[in-house]
């Protein structure tokens, strides 16, 4: 056999990334840019030196978690477009609790992280509940919950957490994920310990879904609710649980920003896009834990690297959005690539 299954599973995303970059290159050529310079500056912007590498990893961190959030729900047959709002609430909660409580780090930091997860979970609970009990489509409810999160967070920041300011104070060191050590290692990048949390969360997701009886139920409900009911599972409870866990991941993604990257929450003029990008990350990663981590890595690289393209090559950053779109498109159309590989295989024989 020329292509084993595993090899194909690696080949497809690789080929997709390559094709996506190729389309980007043609567009650059078409508009009179040098694609080589363009991609070189993207590379520089993402991995140019340890600082940029650190920043790339920092950007990857929330993407992993928001990607996991979308993926987790997806695996149980639910489409959580509300990750965006759950991120905002997690962000808010982490900062709020960080500011409100005075405690040594060993208590404070876990507390803050738990608060973020709980806030995101709470934001996922309602759509889950409505879906489970009344059959209300989770897509609409989560879309609505995004707006409610945005406006509520803004109002809380302004009127409750700060007095009339545009952003909260900075959280104290004891509640912060930042690390002198990581910063020094990467020339003052904002890389923080959250990356470990994100990777750990990926492992958790894999473990819950694939190794536990709970995960077995969640997956089963995702595939076939009737059979799950027949087998004695509580379908409604699993739907709610799935949204809650998904929301908790999203809340953690918010915490990465709240107590990692920023250290405060501010009044937002619009969405953070971390949640919406999470949809792309999850789907790119095939809704599997490892896939999500890799997809987040790709996504973070492209996003951070893109910032350097206007300076480095005069290419508008939007080119990267086009490239990302094309990569997603090719991954989605993997049937085509599979078919092509199969043909190659046949001819190779």
């Amino acid at each position, binding site marked *: 056999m020329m292509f084993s299954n595993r090899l194909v599973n690696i080949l497809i995303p690789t080929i997709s990334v390559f094709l996506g970059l190729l389309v980007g290159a043609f567009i650059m050529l078409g508009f009179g840019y040098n694609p080589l310079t363009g991609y070189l500056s993207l590379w520089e*912007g993402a991995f140019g030196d340890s600082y940029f590498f650190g*920043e790339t990893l920092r950007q990857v961190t929330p993407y992993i978690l928001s990607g996991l959030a979308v993926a987790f729900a997806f695996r149980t047959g639910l489409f959580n477009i509300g990750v965006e709002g759950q991120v905002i609430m997690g962000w808010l909660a982490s900062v709020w609790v960080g500011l409100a409580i005075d405690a040594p780090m060993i208590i404070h930091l876990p507390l803050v992280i738990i608060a973020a997860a709980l806030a995101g979970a709470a934001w996922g609970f309602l759509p889950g509940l409505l879906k489970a009990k009344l059959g209300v489509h989770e897509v609409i409810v989560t879309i609505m919950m995004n707006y409610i999160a945005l406006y509520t967070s803004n109002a809380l920041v302004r009127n409750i957490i700060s007095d*009339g300011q545009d952003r909260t104070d900075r959280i104290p060191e004891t509640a912060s994920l930042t690390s002198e050590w990581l910063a020094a290692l990467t020339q*003052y990048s904002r890389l923080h310990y959250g990356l470990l949390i994100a990777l750990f969360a990926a492992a958790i997701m894999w473990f819950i879904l694939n190794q536990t009886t709970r995960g077995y139920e969640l997956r089963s409900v995702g595939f076939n609710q009737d059979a799950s009911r027949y087998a004695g599972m509580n379908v409604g409870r699993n739907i709610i649980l799935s949204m809650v866990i998904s929301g908790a991941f999203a809340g953690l993604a918010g915490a990465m920003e709240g107590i990692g990257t920023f250290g405060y929450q501010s009044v937002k*003029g619009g969405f953070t896009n971390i949640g919406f990008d999470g949809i792309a990350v999850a789907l790119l990663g095939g809704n599997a834990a490892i896939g999500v981590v890799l997809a987040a890595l790709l996504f973070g690289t492209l996003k951070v690297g893109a*910032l350097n393209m206007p300076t480095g090559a005069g290419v508008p950053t939007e080119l990267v959005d086009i490239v990302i779109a094309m990569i997603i498109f090719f991954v989605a159309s993997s049937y085509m690539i599979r078919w092509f590989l199969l043909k190659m295989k046949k001819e190779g024989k």
Partner: protein
Amino acid sequence: ACGSSDGDSEDAEGSGSDNSNGEEAAGDDFSVAMVTDVGGIDDKSFNQSAWEGLTAFGEENGMEKGQGIDYAQSTSDADYNTNLNRLVRSDYNLIYGIGFLLAPAIEEVADQNPDTNFGIVDSVVEKDNVASIVFKEHQGSFLVGVAAAMKTESDKVGFIGGVDSDLINKFEAGFRAGVKSVNKDIEVKVQYAGAFDAPDDGKAIASNMYSQGIDVIYHASGGTGNGVFAQAKDLKQNDADRNVWVIGVDRDQHEEGQINDTNVTLTSMVKRVDVAVQDVSTNAMNGEFPGGEVVEYGLEDDAISVATTNEEAMTDEIKTAVEDWKEKIVNGEVEVPSTIDEVKEFEDSL
């Protein structure tokens, strides 16, 4: 050292090594750059204005983009630090963060890079290597408030803010004070859209305000303001005699108000970020960087002004009144409130 001779301007950058060439040509080894907020370099607002200031500074000193001056654009809040650091790494002497959103990032990066100078626009960062550039938007808003008060026939005017925040409150406070100073009985209706990118809400709010008899609306709401203009122009199109006005913000929004051969933009509260940026840059180049200081730009520096492009609407009477009040503000006779609490006090004292 003026007028660099090598033709390649755009793609000379790339890595630090061939940068030295460009910088030398740029004169005195001084270089300035800026980081935009999420609005982007061409937001037709303060980012764009700041870049215009830098370009003007560059022209004076024989620099151009990529050689002596440059900018980095941000697409999300998380990008500010990265962009600032990128520019620090390219050895720029002075780096601006445009917009209050960048304040925390400037604070952090300035801490980490004590040898680089920074400027923050629209906010205050207390660091020795940071110059805080703020504007007295309340003063300008006061003056357009005066214009609005004189223009209104219904004695009802409106204010539409983007997101309810300190900065926008400053606009609101000044505007209300200005209106009330002319006529205590004029009603000022204030509404925030909750977003800077919601033209639909802007339009709906404007529609509601105009239908209640309000005839002048001052908007400080970025892209949301598009909807305000759309509504005003629509009313004008349907009834050329109708009294509907919009007051623009940040720059002269005359163009936005053009409808057929008339214009609904009464005036605009113009904030000359370019003036400030050019000024601070020149000072810095001359070794007088106002590090650790809060540099306030206002009416007296012509960094805040009131547009008079719409000559028909801005009658001599209004212009004179605006001038008079400006005089009073500049010489300290009138203290313009800059927060909601202050404006309440101010109104009570009238």
